[in-house]
């Protein structure tokens, strides 16, 4: 899918205050049979979002019209489990560009950064406060500046500084891929193989 550059973003949020949301919940395995990257958004959180008969589960947050936006806020250890990048494609395809949690699983975080989905780690109490604020008023917004690594939360004048690897930040802002970088240093890779005596 064409990856958009991301730098500044102001958006309302969708709160999903559940811990340990695994990639099987984000996109169940039975939807992994596609051979392209597109179209996974319609099955995002499939088994929470729809009832067994295929009707929308009204109590699930994505079916609540009051909540929308490009920012998903989730409980800790988000994206644990399977390495399926389809989970990130589904979240992105649905329309999210940022996920906020106090804690991300490693592979999910890497996959997000490789696909233009920004994972922002905030301290647990800030995440809980933010969820509370959004639940009280779905209209409140967060303001994100990736270049400055700052996020402004509703009800707080002070922007919070979040961490991100400088290289990855540059990639996201400029829409670069790791693969472009690696292809550009192929001579170094060949040199490494020669030095080690491997091909």
């Amino acid at each position, binding site marked *: 899918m064409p990856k958009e550059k991301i730098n500044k973003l102001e958006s309302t949020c969708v709160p999903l205050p559940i811990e340990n949301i695994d990639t*099987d*919940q984000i996109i169940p395995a039975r939807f992994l049979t596609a051979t392209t*990257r597109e179209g996974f958004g319609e099955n995002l959180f499939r088994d929470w979002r729809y009832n*067994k008969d295929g009707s929308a589960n009204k109590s699930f947050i994505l079916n609540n019209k009051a909540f929308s936006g490009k920012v998903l806020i989730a409980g800790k250890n988000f994206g*644990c489990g*399977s390495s399926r990048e389809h989970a990130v494609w589904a979240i992105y395809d649905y329309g999210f560009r940022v996920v906020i949690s106090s804690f991300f699983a490693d*592979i999910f975080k890497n996959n997000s950064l490789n696909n233009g989905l920004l994972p922002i780690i905030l301290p647990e109490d800030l995440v809980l406060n933010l969820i509370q604020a959004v639940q009280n008023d779905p209209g409140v917004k967060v303001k994100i500046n990736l270049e400055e690594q700052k996020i402004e939360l509703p009800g707080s004048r002070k922007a919070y500084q979040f961490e991100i690897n400088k290289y990855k930040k540059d990639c996201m802002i400029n829409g670069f891929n790791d693969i472009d970088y690696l292809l550009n240093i192929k001579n170094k890779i060949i040199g490494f193989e020669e030095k080690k005596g491997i091909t």
Partner: protein
Amino acid sequence: MKAKTLFEKIWDSHAVYSIEDGPEVLYIDQHYIHEVTSPQAFKGLDDRGIKVFRPKRTLATADHNIPTKDQHLTIKEELSRLQVEKLTENCKKHKINLFGLNHKKNGIVHVIGPELGFTRPGMTIVCGDSHTSTHGAFGTIAFGIGTSEVEMVLATQCLLQTKPKTMRINVNGDLKKGVTSKDIIMYIIAKLTSGGATGYFVEYAGTAIEKLSMEARMTICNMSIEMGARGGLIAPDKITFAYLKKRIGKLTDKEWESQLRKWKKLKSDPGVKFDKEIKIQASDINPMITFGTNPGMAITVTGNIPLSGGLEDKKDESFLKSLNYMGFKPGDKLAGRKVDYVFLGSCTNGRIEDFREFASLVKGRKKASNITALLVPGSKLVEEQVKREGLLEILNDAGFELRQPGCSSCLAMNEDKIPAGKYAVSTSNRNFEGRQGPGARTLLASPLTAAAAAITGKITDPSEFIN
């Protein structure tokens, strides 16, 4: 010279280049691929008009979505069939070695890599599958990657990676009867929680680990990801070398000796400091079973479900949601509860030793009438060995059938689904909601505990059956 951990030794010898304030370029020795997470990566190469850089360093298999019955017939599910066909087409086009469906060496990627001698000590190994950590049992840095990263490895044999922190988990002493390596790792995950090792690469050590077979070590490393670890490894030793000697052909004695000399250096230096170190007594471990919807939610088979999810009240919402899905209540006892399905298989417990353990317990007994059993070997070679060793006869006599190899009911991408609301004692690695089919309720356990459930029809401590 500075003392190094085994992990650091392997990492440092594969670091091609470091980006300032960024990740390192890591060279990958062995790449495994399968039908589900590779098609988009090959498409990426095609879109760029580039070829696979080092095709000999990639090995392919079809395992995730394939049926485990009538494999000689066409795959019924159209999208699954297309995915397998796409893999065949991509491997042919890019000259990649494929042990596809019906090939005599076909099987689950993390079972065939080791059993065919591709996985060797000191390597860096990746695959678009989180259970790649399995290969760490041979003293390798092995971890799961996403499809974008599969594309990077195909294109450049390298990845950009940030060095994780190191943790050593020492398990010392003797295991009680009926306790297996599956129970060791489930005990560790329950102690650390499902996110407790995130950001770390784990080394398993100690006298209890040193006594384990390669199959048992693979089960432990396999589930490292279930506590969030980037991977897990075990220093290679004489058990590792004996396993490999049988599997690596084409080497002269001199070549083998030279390999051995290198492999014997693969251990953490004495006195080296890990970022975190944990000590466990093997005798504290009992047969384990999960009660919730992540692998950290586990208790002893004879124990009770905790009354709350943690010390803080705010955690209980997720805890209760999980118990509600499972149809359990805080404080419930699991032993004696009826179950409906038993699944023996997966990259965690689909190896010959797992079938030996299961068969040893069901031998001379009969499958309970309320149990539907799915016994799925991890590979064609395992399937053959089950037959050759006479295990199939034991299983058949006890009322069990053997299916054909594949990932099967572990993630239920094929027809092997557990129906909604039903309980399955499974030897696989994940008890997430819907993992084994929409609404399915998974209870993770060892092959022995699965066998005990298959015989009694209930959750049962296997030690009752072991003299």
